[in-house]
């Protein structure tokens, strides 16, 4: 025992820090997925295809960044895809009632924030469990979209609004390009990284997740922090919804339906603790890329839809088990 301890201490500090960092698991998985995917299909050596496919996942990924902070604060938001849908739908409805597209977009963003405020009031001020509230609002927000447009598609937007994801930042090869939405995502990721890991606001988020009572006694206004998290979530989700609408050229009530699990998987795989207090923006970033590659890889490899669901379910379990494995072993030893 003592020998091992000496060995462990002998490791260079950087390596030890790396091994214990929360980004290790997603990073190892990412490498594994890349290896598997590249060996599976030639398509994975085709950057044009990858970039095009990535632009399809990027909107949901933006909202996932905010979800990382919410999970870090010990809560969850399962209404993200529904907020995306609701904001985009109401923006589109406004546009079709004569509101200029620019104003309609602003209305969409406001709708997103209102959805967030609604969640926030119920969770932060009324004190209801976030899981229950957002399962409810998930249906409420999508229901609103369905009430407004039913089973119809709403599209025919002005040309300047359509296909923002195809605005090329720079081009490569014959048809390859990196779309502007990918840049927005990267900028958002940097912004939220700084917010969560480099500001006092971020420290408070961690404090709430680790021990809310202690945070209150330390003078943290937990209610306003929680509220602000859901408002940010609503705003970014609304923005992501509008980007999705621009990409699809239309909106439907079932936009992004059943993607709630994907968002949670990305956050948890990124090293966030479902019980709060732990979370990593870099980890989520890596996990987003990993889930995107995995899903694309499974489809290109011709894995059927039900088997894909199996893999995603397995991934969710693994993402919850791995970060807690140390604690589990510790608990076993203490017995």
């Amino acid at each position, binding site marked *: *025992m003592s020998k*091992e*301890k000496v060995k*462990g201490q002998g490791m260079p500090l950087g390596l030890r820090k790396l*091994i214990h960092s929360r980004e290790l*698991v997603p990073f*190892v*998985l990412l490498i*594994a*997925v890349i290896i*598997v995917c590249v*060996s*599976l*299909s030639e*398509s994975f050596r*085709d950057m044009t*295809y990858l970039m*095009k*496919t990535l632009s*399809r996942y990027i909107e949901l990924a933006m909202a996932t960044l905010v979800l990382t902070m919410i999970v870090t604060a010990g809560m969850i938001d399962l209404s993200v895809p529904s907020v995306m849908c609701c904001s985009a739908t109401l923006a589109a409805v406004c546009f079709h009632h004569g509101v200029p597209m620019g104003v309609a977009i602003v209305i969409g963003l406001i709708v997103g924030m209102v959805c967030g405020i609604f969640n926030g009031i119920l969770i932060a001020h009324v004190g209801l469990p976030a899981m229950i509230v957002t399962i409810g609002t998930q249906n409420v927000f999508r229901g609103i979209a369905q009430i407004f447009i039913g089973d119809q*598609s709403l*599209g025919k937007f002005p040309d300047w609004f*359509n*296909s923002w994801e195809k605005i090329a930042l720079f081009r490569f090869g014959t048809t390859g390009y990196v779309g502007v939405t990918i840049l927005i995502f990267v900028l958002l990721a940097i912004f939220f990284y700084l917010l969560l890991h480099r500001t006092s606001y971020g420290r408070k988020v961690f404090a709430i997740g680790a021990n809310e009572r202690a945070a209150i006694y330390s003078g943290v206004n937990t209610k306003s922090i929680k509220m602000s998290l859901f408002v940010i979530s609503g705003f970014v989700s609304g923005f992501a919804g509008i980007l999705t609408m621009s*990409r*699809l*050229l*239309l909106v*439907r009530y*079932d*936009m*992004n*339906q*059943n993607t709630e699990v994907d968002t949670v998987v990305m956050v948890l795989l990124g090293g966030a603790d479902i019980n709060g207090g732990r979370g990593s923006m870099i980890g989520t970033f890596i996990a987003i890329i990993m889930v995107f590659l995995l*899903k*694309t*890889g*499974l*489809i*290109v*490899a*011709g*894995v*059927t*839809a*039900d*088997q*894909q*669901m199996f*893999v995603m379910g*397995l991934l969710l379990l*693994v993402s919850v*088990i*791995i970060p807690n*494995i*140390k604690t589990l*072993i*510790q608990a076993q*030893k203490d017995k």
Partner: protein
Amino acid sequence: MKKILAMLLLTAMVGTMILSGCSKKETPAEETTEETTETTEETTETTEETTEVKTLNIVFIPKNLGNPYFEAIGDGFEKGIADLEATGEYDITYEMTGPATPEATTQIEYIEAAVQKKADVIFIAPNSNDALNSTFDDARAAGTKIVIINGDIPGSEDHRDAAIMPCNFDNVAKAQIELMGSYIGYKGQFAVLSATTDAPDQNYWVDGMKEIMADKDNYEGGKYKDMELVDVVYGDDLPEKSTTEMEALLTKYPDLAGVICPTTVGIAAATKVVETKGIADKVIVTGLGLPSEMKGYVESGSSMGFQLWDPPFEGEMGVYLAVAVKYDGFDFSAGSSFDVNGTSYSILDDGQIMSLDEPKLFDKNNLDEFTY
């Protein structure tokens, strides 16, 4: 020690995950690589012998996987491909792939993956009339043809190359009345139990039936002049509502000889009503039904027969259409045609191809052959 143990376990977990991931995915991957190597070998061999193997890449994307109706279309694709490959002239790559749930935009990723794999033709049963338009445009710009199968996308016809229709809908009304007439001896009252009041296809057929019956004294030499269309009711494609409406019809019209249900939900519910009441020989129920749902009623004698489309043939037609597009210069222009097993099919002005002229009859003589 604890930390090292934890690390070991962690690596083991990751390892098993990767392994399980690999083994799960290996099967299709290995198959495809083997196939491709085989085909390249074959082609090199055959080019030496100067006989050319025609390659073709077809992808079929159903509304969702696990739907027996679309599985039947898939069977048709496989049959057509097997027939063509048996001639030795063709080497056809075929894949049936799609989402688990029939949502409007879940098919996008499958279309993009098919384009990435350089599919020549994508056959798709879309979940929305317009949600896939931009994806279709991108696919066609990349050189892949988009053919809608088992229907069309009204309002978005500019975004697809063609549509294989299950049946010529103009003939459904007449075919259904003829079937009803043949079962009731062209005599007596009949009613229609339809889907919802705004179901476009059903309304089109019901209007067609009304037109025929309004002109029954002159239509086809007065063949249907002793038949009377007494009522049209709507079961909203819900089993309970259809049952209620059917029972109301029986009460309201005691002399009713038959009911036409041009909807699969309606016919199943209505047949169950006459079976339960033991009046299946007095009130004949027919219409458009799914063989899998109607099988029990046909076996028990409660249903004499019904009609529907021929999904396997739609798939088979797709294969020949794809061959015609790639090798025979078929360019989807109106009036141009291609052959399926010796019968010529042409494309209409609106880009539609009718796989059936009239709906196909299913009764006790042929029902066992069908799985959908």
